[in-house]
């Protein structure tokens, strides 16, 4: 009984100290933060079109907030950071997807216009074969 009490008095301060010691966020949180950062960087690099999108700005804001939440060094702060970072990740992915889809649609429209122009030109030159274009 005495030994038990002794162990307890020893263990308590150890636990208390551990709680005070610098809080480490879980692997899940740090992994998510890294993933979000990479996705935002990718979005940044994916062209001018994406930079003007509010979704990318939202992603950056949320990522910054997540970083601030991590500085609280508490379980609550970690949870907040995880939620924000997850949202920032999908926001940035959405911005990238939106920009890529817009680019592709413009390209498709341009290609269609090119085909139409070419067709017009061939029709025209077939009608008047004497005109030579360099």
């Amino acid at each position, binding site marked *: 009984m005495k030994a038990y009490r002794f162990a307890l008095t020893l263990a308590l301060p150890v636990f208390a100290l551990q709680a005070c010691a610098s809080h480490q966020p879980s692997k899940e949180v740090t992994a998510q933060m890294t993933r979000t950062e990479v*996705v935002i960087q*990718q979005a940044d*690099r*994916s*062209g001018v079109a994406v930079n003007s999108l509010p979704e990318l700005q939202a992603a950056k804001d949320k990522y910054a907030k997540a970083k601030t939440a991590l500085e609280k060094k508490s379980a609550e702060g970690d949870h907040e950071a995880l*939620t924000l970072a*997850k*949202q920032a990740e*999908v*926001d940035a*992915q*959405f911005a*990238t*997807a*939106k920009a*890529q*889809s817009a*680019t*592709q*649609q*413009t*390209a*498709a429209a341009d*290609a*269609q216009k090119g085909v139409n122009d070419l067709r017009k030109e061939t029709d025209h030159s077939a009608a008047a074969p004497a005109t030579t274009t360099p």
Partner: protein
Amino acid sequence: MNVKKSSFAVAAAVAFALAACSSQPVQNDGLEAARVAVQQAESSPDAGKYAAAEVAAAHEALVEADRLAAKNKKDKGIQEQAYVAQRHADIAVQQIAKGQAEAKTGCRSGTPEGRAAGP
């Protein structure tokens, strides 16, 4: 007097408890909006062709949101998962539009190297 007061308090407490049970507002607008968005993305005929991974991710997040809602309607996680589901559905819609445009042009263009579908 005292007895009267306390019985009133008990009655009030019971009334409040009942009110809380009966007219609990279902504050899961986000979840329902996400459900619609996911269903729309899934029902696109080109979903499997161009956005299979995103549609699957959207579906998974929606299932998780429903699972949380079944346990506790006030769980914060419901809105979080609904947000993720909504975004994955949005991404899927964009990827489908991009794929359809690519098919029209017959080639891919304008995107920097190796950034096709994203993770």
